């Protein structure tokens, strides 16, 4: 026969459960903190003005990583140029204009699935379409376009979600005051959704900045003695450079590897921080 729980037993059960959940939460955060601290400790000695502003030399075993830093910035900007307008436009279409038809449902499913495709597949796709078929060559342009396609699902789905979270009543009121649908979107809906959209954009771009596989065949160079001059030049990039100096160069000083990793980490975490600041500021200011 089962004994009914006494109030004191319930209290203990709650205690145990709560403690277990708290421990699990810590367990997930700990590795992240450990990684950051480890890279910081290992990489910090490598950081110097020369490391950040110089070119690699001695077969990349010495010198700086400037071309990789600049390359990653170029690729991030290039990705933003293509994916941000397209992604936001698609999100506006899906949230504000598209009615619930089999077609739009298919589009939504496609977007969700696009987000799950392994990044190396994007790389191969970019190689086939942009590098070879469209003849852009191994270039910043081809790599940016490839990264854009990979980033689009993130941007579209977060932007659509933040557009949808704008109360429907705002739209009705705006329309009732003689606004057209587009005026309502531009003046009210987009304005309110902007912080959420920006957060999605930054998170998407951040992922693009840290990816290796999509640029592997489309735009990344093993080593370049100079900075790229045009979108049709190949470029060095931080994640690929890290891969190269970790696996392809024998007798590589470990310090430089971790220094590169640290720069990449700071780059990505800074974007993350910006996204968090935008989000929390908007939340504080939100009027509904």
């Amino acid at each position, binding site marked *: 026969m089962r004994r009914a729980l006494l109030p004191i037993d319930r209290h203990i059960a709650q205690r145990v459960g709560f403690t277990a959940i708290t421990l699990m939460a810590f367990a997930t955060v700990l590795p992240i903190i450990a990684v950051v601290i480890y890279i910081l400790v290992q990489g910090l000695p490598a950081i110097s003005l020369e490391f950040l502003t110089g070119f690699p030399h001695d077969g990349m075993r010495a010198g700086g990583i400037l071309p990789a830093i600049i390359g990653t910035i170029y690729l991030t900007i290039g990705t933003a140029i293509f994916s941000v307008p397209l992604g936001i436009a698609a999100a506006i279409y899906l949230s504000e204009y598209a009615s619930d038809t089999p077609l739009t449902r298919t589009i939504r499913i496609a977007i969700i699935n696009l987000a799950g495709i392994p990044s190396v597949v994007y790389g191969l796709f970019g190689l086939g379409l942009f590098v070879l078929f469209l003849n852009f060559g191994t270039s910043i342009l081809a790599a940016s376009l490839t990264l854009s396609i990979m980033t689009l699902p993130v941007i579209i789905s977060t932007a659509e979600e933040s557009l949808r979270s704008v109360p429907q009543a705002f739209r009705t009121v705006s329309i*009732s005051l003689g606004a057209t649908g587009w005026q309502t979107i531009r003046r009210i809906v987009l304005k309110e959704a902007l912080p959420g959209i920006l957060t999605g954009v930054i998170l998407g771009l951040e992922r693009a900045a840290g990816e290796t596989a999509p640029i592997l065949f489309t735009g990344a160079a093993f080593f370049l003695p100079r900075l790229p001059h045009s979108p049709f030049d190949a470029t060095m990039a931080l994640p690929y450079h890290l891969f190269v100096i970790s696996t392809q160069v024998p007798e590589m000083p470990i310090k430089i590897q971790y220094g590169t990793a640290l720069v990449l980490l700071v780059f990505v975490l800074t974007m993350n921080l910006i996204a968090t600041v935008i989000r929390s500021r908007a939340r504080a200011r939100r009027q*509904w």
Partner: protein
Amino acid sequence: MDKIIIENLSLQYSDGIESLRDVSLNIRENAVTVLFGPAGGGKSTLLRCLNRLNDLTEVKAASGRILIDGQNILDPTIDVIALRRKVGMVFARPVVLPLSIRGNLTYGLELAGEKRRSKLDEAVERSLKLAALWEEVKDRLDDPAIALSGGQQQRLCLARSLALQPEIILLDEPTSGLDPISTGKVEAALQELKKEYTIILVPHSVQQAGRTADYAAFFLQGELVEYGEGKSLFTAPKQKRTEDYITGRFG
């Protein structure tokens, strides 16, 4: 003078719910016409037909005509934007746009192409005075509108429709969320406004219907049961169903 003539209006939503059945009704200028009855009677649907806000919902079939100043506004070729400027609306829940107090009032005018600061300021002051809100907010027009109290927000919504200088004002249970003092202020404002505007009100209670109506129309399940002058309808209704509702036997 009849401002609005509704002829044999029937309307069905795409989920199959019939919302209005063969409604014919003449609404007079410079008076408060009250549409009342239990929920689901078609009052709000009728209101939303008058400024074509039903365009936003899935309407399966509509038949009949609505003439405003002789023009059939259900005609798909009419200028809906111009119609909505002419027929203002205040909703049940005060929805202020996420703008300043001034921004809420000038929103519609700016969309209509008014850029002159003097005209906009003039409209802000005039409409706030009409809605009996001017004294309370004149020193903080640039504050966010959301900071106002519920009653003030609802009067701001009224002022916002008035800023466009409409001819007709539709009010869908405008005082349902308000305390009695704020409700009194809104009702008093309506009595002033009817001198210049045609007002159609869906009240939130029979008592409010009785207090405000020059003319009253009783709706039950999409059907117009009875329509007449407020005084006679509330004291001596001709239909049994109207009487039952007014005296609180159902609804």
